[in-house]
């Protein structure tokens, strides 16, 4: 006990100012030397020589080509297999689509009347939470019908309704296996890390190769994209079940299967349902982007209009997607936080199941209505309202009114920030970058971490896309810095009172549900295409985590410590800088980590508006169905993210331990 307190005491002892600077200096020093001496270095140490490129792309393509054309299992090839699996998904898809929108012409059955869909959504909302959620979901459905987005939105909804359960079940299975078999966990967790940092487009390319393009392929891409978060949350949830509860199951005489099925899974219900929420939101985000490989629905509509630069119409589709996102998020979130509550023993059937009764009522009434008036079956197209004129007017007004200042901002940004930073980044020798990352890894987590992260950077360097990667890195860096400069003060401001916190949190929650693609609409409207627009989109999207984590970190500083500060006579400013900030800093760093990840996701999507970075190359690979290149480029992006992630997480964990917060 004494020994432990002693080591702790020495660790906590304030270091001399010089000593505390020495370590970071040592980390940065080799980098600075190499950077400043770049002109003196031999050429190979600055630019990766062409001849040194390791043909990862060719290898990947050979492998993929082999799998596509030659790998034969008895009577069929690998591609036949993937296509057959893809064929399976058309059945549930056709069924749900038939139910929601297209009907079943073969058996002469019409689709559900829109009033029924709206009514049932309303009942679901009431059941999961309260009448307000019921109103929101019924209203959302009604909006789609009345504002002429019915077909598109129901197709998108069908994909989500089919893809989410499949992805959820697969992820759930993977999660269970990982918890039960250690070797599988050791295998799958690093894979999940990489998969979750791969940009959306990287999922699309292999799909295009093995399944083709079209609605079906888009659905499959959606399923695959949504699996990792569910697997991860299943692992987290099952591991989070209190050991005592598991023991209680064992002591009750549960077999292994009973322990899993009757004790662990029900006890982990909430994290599992949060996983389902994640899956649904990922599905929606992906189905929008999957329109690039031909998924139909709202995303396709949006893509089409953005390509034609019809911003007003694009905004109209965007609003529909956003509405759907908010509703799906609220519903699945409510399901996760719903607690069972007791029922009286002598309740009648209707008292026990009021919502079942209400649903039956909705079905009967809407069928009746539909038989009386066609308006209840399908909203007639000529009565559909369009908000496009309004949006168009808004866009015109913004462009006309703000043309001068926007141009000025754009040019200033380019001239004084973006171009200088880009030039600086492009002058960084690759050896300097490796040295920096390795030194940081060494000081934060020892040899293992140093090897991992420098391995990541070396992969990027030798994959042959170093310059493109530097452009990506520069855009992400600028965006993240601006996010910190803006997001940190917002977070600090919001953490000051309960009221501000709840408002800002609500905003963050809402903005986070929007599929990332949506963020391109306003920036195209304001800045047209180019780097400024791309970076603006990244900033909006990546701002969310830094704000959220700052609030969380500041508000979760133990109240006793804050009280100790107050009774010591701190002013508010002193309280913030001497107590709250240092203690919240590890959490804020994790927020910055997330911000970097978000920025990387967005920078790739921003390739759509004409950047010149690695995203553009991925975009090209998608166009040419070059799966190998797409994969390698995707890994480059993932490794950039993981390098930052590994370093920051290691730092934050250590720091938290030192502060006694972990």
């Amino acid at each position: 006990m004494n020994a432990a307190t002693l080591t702790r005491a020495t660790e906590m002892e304030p270091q001399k100012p010089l000593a505390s600077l020495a370590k970071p200096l040592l980390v940065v020093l080799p980098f600075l030397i190499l950077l400043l001496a770049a002109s003196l270095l031999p050429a190979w140490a600055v630019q990766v020589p062409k001849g040194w490129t390791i043909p990862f792309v060719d290898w990947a393509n050979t492998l993929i080509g082999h799998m596509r054309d030659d790998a034969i299992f008895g009577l069929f090839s690998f591609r036949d297999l993937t296509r057959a699996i893809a064929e399976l998904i058309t059945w549930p898809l056709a069924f749900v689509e038939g139910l929601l929108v297209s009907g079943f012409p073969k058996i002469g059955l019409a689709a559900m009347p829109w009033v029924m869909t709206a009514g049932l959504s309303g009942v679901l909302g009431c059941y999961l939470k309260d009448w307000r959620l019921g109103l929101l979901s019924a209203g959302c459905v009604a909006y789609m019908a009345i504002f002429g987005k019915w077909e598109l939105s129901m197709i998108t909804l069908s994909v989500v309704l089919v893809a989410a359960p499949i992805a959820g079940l697969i992820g759930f299975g993977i999660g269970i296996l990982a918890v039960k078999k250690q070797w599988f966990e050791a295998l799958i967790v690093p894979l999940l890390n990489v998969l979750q940092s791969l940009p959306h487009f990287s999922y699309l390319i292999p799909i295009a190769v093995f399944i083709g393009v079209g609605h079906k392929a888009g659905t499959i891409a959606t399923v695959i994209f949504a699996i990792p978060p569910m697997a991860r949350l299943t692992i987290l949830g099952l591991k989070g079940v209190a050991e005592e509860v598991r023991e209680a199951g064992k002591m009750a005489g549960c077999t292994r299967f009973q322990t899993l099925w009757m004790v662990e899974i029900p006890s982990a219900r909430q994290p599992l349902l949060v996983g389902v929420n994640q899956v649904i939101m990922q599905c929606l985000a992906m189905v929008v982007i999957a329109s690039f490989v031909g998924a139909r629905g709202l995303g396709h509509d949006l893509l089409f209009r953005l390509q034609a630069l019809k911003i007003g119409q694009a905004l109209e589709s965007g609003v529909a997607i956003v509405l759907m996102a908010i509703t799906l998020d609220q519903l699945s979130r409510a399901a996760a936080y719903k607690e069972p509550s007791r029922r009286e023993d002598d309740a009648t059937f209707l008292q026990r199941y009021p919502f079942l009764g209400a649903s039956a009522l909705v079905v009967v009434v809407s069928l009746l209505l539909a038989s009386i008036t066609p308006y209840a079956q399908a909203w007639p197209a000529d009565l559909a309202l369009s908000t496009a004129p309004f949006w168009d007017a808004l866009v015109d007004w913004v462009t006309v009114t703000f043309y001068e200042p926007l141009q000025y901002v754009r040019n200033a940004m380019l001239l004084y920030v973006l171009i200088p930073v880009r030039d600086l980044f492009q002058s960084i020798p690759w050896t300097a970058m490796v040295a920096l990352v390795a030194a940081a890894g060494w000081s934060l987590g020892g040899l293992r971490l140093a090897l991992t992260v420098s391995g990541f950077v070396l992969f990027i360097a030798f994959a042959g896309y170093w310059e493109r990667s530097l452009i990506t890195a520069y855009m992400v860096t600028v965006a993240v810095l601006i996010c910190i400069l803006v997001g940190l003060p917002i977070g600090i401001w919001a953490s000051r009172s309960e009221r501000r916190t709840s408002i800002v949190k609500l905003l963050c929650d809402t903005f986070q549900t929007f599929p990332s693609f949506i963020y391109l609409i306003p920036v195209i409207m304001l800045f047209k295409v180019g780097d400024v627009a791309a970076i603006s989109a990244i900033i909006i999207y990546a701002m969310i985590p830094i704000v959220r984590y700052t609030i969380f970190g500041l508000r979760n500083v133990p109240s006793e410590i804050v009280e100790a500060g107050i009774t010591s006579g701190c002013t508010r400013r002193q309280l913030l800088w001497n107590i709250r900030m240092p203690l919240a800093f590890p959490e804020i760093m994790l927020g910055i980590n997330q911000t970097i990840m978000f920025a990387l996701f967005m920078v790739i999507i921003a390739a759509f508006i004409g950047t010149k970075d690695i995203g553009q190359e991925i975009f090209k690979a998608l166009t040419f169905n070059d799966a190998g290149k797409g994969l390698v480029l995707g890994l480059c992006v993932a490794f950039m993210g993981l390098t930052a992630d590994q370093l920051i997480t290691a730092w934050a964990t250590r720091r938290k331990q030192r502060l006694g917060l972990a």
Partner: protein
Amino acid sequence: MTEAKIACRNLWKLYGADPAGFLRRHGGNPSIETIRAEGYVPAVRDVSFEVMPGEILVVMGLSGSGKSTLLRCLARLIEPTSGEVMFEGRDILAASERELIELRRHKMGMVFQHFALLPHRTVLDNVAFPLQVRGTDRQKREARAREVIELVGLKGREAYYPRELSGGQQQRVGIARSLAVGPDVWFLDEPFSALDPLIRREMQDEFLRLQKMLNKTIVFITHDFDEAIRVADRIAIMKDGVVEQLGTAEELVTCPATPYVAEFTRNVSHDRLLSVRSIMAPASARAPDAAAVQVEALLASVARQVLSSERPVDVVDDGGALVGTLSRDSLIDALYGKEQCA
């Protein structure tokens, strides 16, 4: 002689890279310095004891003393590194998974510190859970569950969910669940530690009331010495994985085997623990006074009489025969002075 219900012999549990090999290399009995020096964590070291049918054995120690690990080794929730655990004369460590499950389904019940209730089940379903997993049909298991729920005083709360109950009520559910299968052996792992002091006292009384009715064989873990004294037949005090002393509360207080035990028992109020027998002086054979005290009486109950008497008070046994005398001085010594070991 009756057979011990549970017994363990030379039980070891070490955590580390290769605990079994480490133990073998050191002849099965390494010192704590060796264990720590080689980076192993000692949880249970060479523990042996027996628990007789109907007995309450309390295992007492501070956090990290290994008491919970010991209990889990007895229930084989944790595999011991070496040693023997006998349950009704059978080696439980040799039992197959199937046998172990059967044993738990019929003979063992356990109560947990943080209740460990299943949040998605009502009180009734929680209590019926052990019966459900062993395949009892719904009607029977619910009838039995209602019976036990009434026994622990929760009648009327059957349809509640755990989160709708107070801590004390939740632990009553935990107790009911552990009793549902009618086990012979009852393991309690700090069952009342998470409760407020007042509720804790109430639950201890409740526990004693139940035990009077049910007469189970009990291993009871606690870190609270007062609780140990209240409920125990015998107490084992653990430190660093070793049982420092095992005996009745009176033995621990009057004759602590180690300085650690002495430290623990120092602040116990002796008058509610010691009986007259432990401090009386022998007396020659003669007829006792009319105002004699019982030999088994606690000091607290006779203090006024003894302290207000000028001369030693006579002590008699159940039959009324004189067995000794108790003087004012020896009572004061026992309560406030340094007591001597016999």
